[in-house]
């Protein structure tokens, strides 16, 4: 299972996605005057966010399951992990300020529509708006989310995929809450240091994933090669 890496990249991903989510979270917390209201807004936003990631994880897991049943996933598993690891290495380089072409992954067709719908929700602020915003923002593309989804996909099971992405989204919460409660107190220098620290975590996890995905260590992932194959071959009761 890739729960710990997911948790770590979720943590790093929230720092990386500061621009995407930070603004929304900060505006939510500034919009609500009372302490309880502010807390409720943060909880609702986080719930929406976590729910979307769980949904995406389950979806990726289902897709992985389909391939597993077709016998493709077992052989492709190492490749998927390698790609996820490589993407994490690239993201870490980007976070450290090296030029990469990763900005291409920050966009996908229909993204503008998602942003516009989110803008409509922000305009018509209601009690449940933070939840909807979290739900919608979860669909916005981020490279580390793709890495998390790759883990979920490689798990080859909707429930495992769900858990993987749940860990990923839980990893995002500390920084999301930090931004929501005291984001305006964090100076740009502090933020830059935080991002660099997170970049090191992503780099480390990325290296481990690439190492594990290499053919030499393929047997180091027994649940994939044996357990998953057995699962796929076991007839349903």
């Amino acid at each position: 299972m890739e729960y710990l890496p997911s948790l770590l990249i979720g943590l790093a991903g929230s720092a990386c996605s500061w621009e995407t989510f930070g603004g929304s979270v900060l505006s939510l917390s500034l919009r609500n005057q009372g302490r309880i209201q502010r807390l409720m807004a943060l909880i609702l936003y986080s719930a929406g966010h976590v729910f979307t990631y769980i949904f995406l994880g389950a979806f990726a897991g289902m897709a992985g399951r389909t391939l597993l049943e077709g016998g493709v996933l077992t052989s492709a598993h190492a490749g998927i992990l390698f790609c996820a690891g490589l993407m994490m290495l690239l993201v870490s380089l980007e976070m450290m300020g090296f030029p990469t072409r990763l900005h291409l992954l920050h966009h996908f067709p229909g993204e503008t529509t998602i942003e516009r719908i989110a803008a409509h929700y922000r305009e018509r602020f209601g009690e449940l708006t933070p939840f909807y915003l979290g739900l919608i923002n979860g669909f916005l593309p981020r490279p580390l989310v793709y890495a998390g989804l790759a883990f979920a996909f490689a798990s080859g099971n909707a429930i495992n995929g769900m858990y993987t992405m749940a860990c990923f989204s839980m990893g995002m919460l500390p920084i999301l809450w930090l931004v929501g409660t005291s984001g305006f107190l964090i100076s740009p220098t502090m933020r830059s240091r935080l991002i660099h620290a997170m970049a090191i975590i992503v780099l480390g996890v990325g290296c481990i994933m690439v190492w594990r995905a290499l053919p030499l260590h393929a047997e180091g992932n027994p649940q994939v090669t044996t357990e998953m194959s057995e699962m796929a071959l076991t007839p349903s009761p």
Partner: protein
Amino acid sequence: MFTVETCAYCHLPISARAVERKLSGTTRLFCCYGCFLLFQITARRKQGRSGKWFLTRIGIGTFLTMCVMLTGWMLAEFPSHPYEEEIIFSAKWLIWALATPVLILIGYPLLKQCVLALASGSFSIEGGIGIVCTVLYGYSFVNLCRGREPLYFDTVCATMLLVTLGKILEATSKSTAAQDIREFLGHEKAPAFRIDQDKILHTTALHLEPGDLVRVPPGYTVPADGKVLEGCSRIRRTPLTGEREPVLCREGDEVLCGGKVIDETLTVQVLKTGKDTVLARLLSVVEQSVLVPSNRRYLVDQALVLFRPLILVAAICTLLWWWQESRIGAWVNLLSVLVIACPCALVLTTPMATTLAVARAAREGILISEVAAIEKISTVNVCIFDETEPTEMGGSHLYSVPDWSERDTYASLVDGSGQSTAVAEVRSVQASAAAATPSSRIITACTQLQARGVRTVLLAGPSFFAGQEKNYPPAIDGFYLGISSQEKADLLRSYREQGYIAAYVSEFPCTPICALDADIRFTTGASYREDLLTNPVTLLGTDLERLPWLIDLSRRVLRTVNWNLAWSSFYSIVGMFAAAAGMVDPVFAAGIMLLGSSLVAGNTAQLHNYPGPSETRS
């Protein structure tokens, strides 16, 4: 050619089929269901509740659909885990409980759409999807009560949600295209700093009146036509005059609404405001042009008239074909056919591309008063530049003439020989004409046109002396001096007889009768005048290098439209047959539809950022 109504939301022309809705007592026309949905949020802001309720509906619908699908996926994993039978049974009822509000929240508007369409004697695909989803829901509920399989609650919810989101996505893309023009048209909302005694009041261009004094700081646009009273600054006014380089304006100079101040603050006395400004008149041309559908759009609309009954026939055949095998399977396949064959992307592409192209050209000072001209420009393969009036030569951009001082010398010499001044003037002009050679601008433009496979021909009227034809540079394929109007017409006709698509470029005020035979006519002029717009395309200013750029832009528009039409027709037709054969799941079909619309919209939206003439050259 016909003029059409515009959509109340995206403001693009409606030609094929309009969605008519009565909102707050007013009947409005929408080009699609998506525009109607989005209109409820954006245009009905004053009636806050309806917009909020719509957003809540979509939000709750999305959340519940995600819950339904999650539960369904978890159920699919259950056989490999030792769960109790009762839990599975409860989970199925949970799915039903979650799916029911989705049907009410998202399915109800689709059903209403169907009823309204049937009442008006037409067929709505979205409505058809709503009906089939309701039938599938009913079947699944009966199966659930009887403890049978299969259940299609997740399919129903996901399909309805994806179809609704697809409609919203299309409407959003269309409104983006229209917004491109509206931003250009939005000069009335431009900020203005009115000087009221000693105070400076922050207002908008809409509230200015002739005689007002305004300050225009650097970076701001001039809010009205006026005269500079104080200050000296360069002003960029490409959309107004076609001049790419900023122009220096000093005290006493006239400035036009829409020009952007670059260097320092100007104090301007307002002379004309609102619809009287040059910009407003230009914009009305741009706005009107997109209302007239292009030939391609007309063809697409005609094709859709045939395509919709074809979808209906395919849907009925699918239902009948699969009915004997499995009734519920027949409804599922019918749903797939309706979803994947929905021709939304087909309807979307042409108006969106042409609107973006008109707005893009307007930003470069090119006014397209007929959208159909874009199609013609892309096919042009001979470009005839005409210069008819020798008296206009001083301001001509087609020819370089000798220095005026030399002309004066010549005139004085002639005058010294005892002839009248008037005759001397004519002679001097003729002398200039005799020495006229194509200007460097036109040579550059011709070189660029040749590189695009367009032949270039230069014409000049009878006042020019013949015999200079052999002195033209290689960039020009033909150079005819001193030919009459009839000869020009014959030349144009001969090109057309040889199969050329001829563009006729004349400098204002010359639009000779012989040019009427041309496939497309361009006018170039130093600045805006009402009578400039008699031709379908006007290049404001003297920069002829925008002509090859315009040809590139129109070719790009055509490529985009053709690619989009080919792609959307391909996936609709192939998908329809695959769905009729039972090979496509409805949710997958909805995903394909969403992806198809996204690709078409994204591909078309790139026209907004089409590089300008200077960027293209660099």
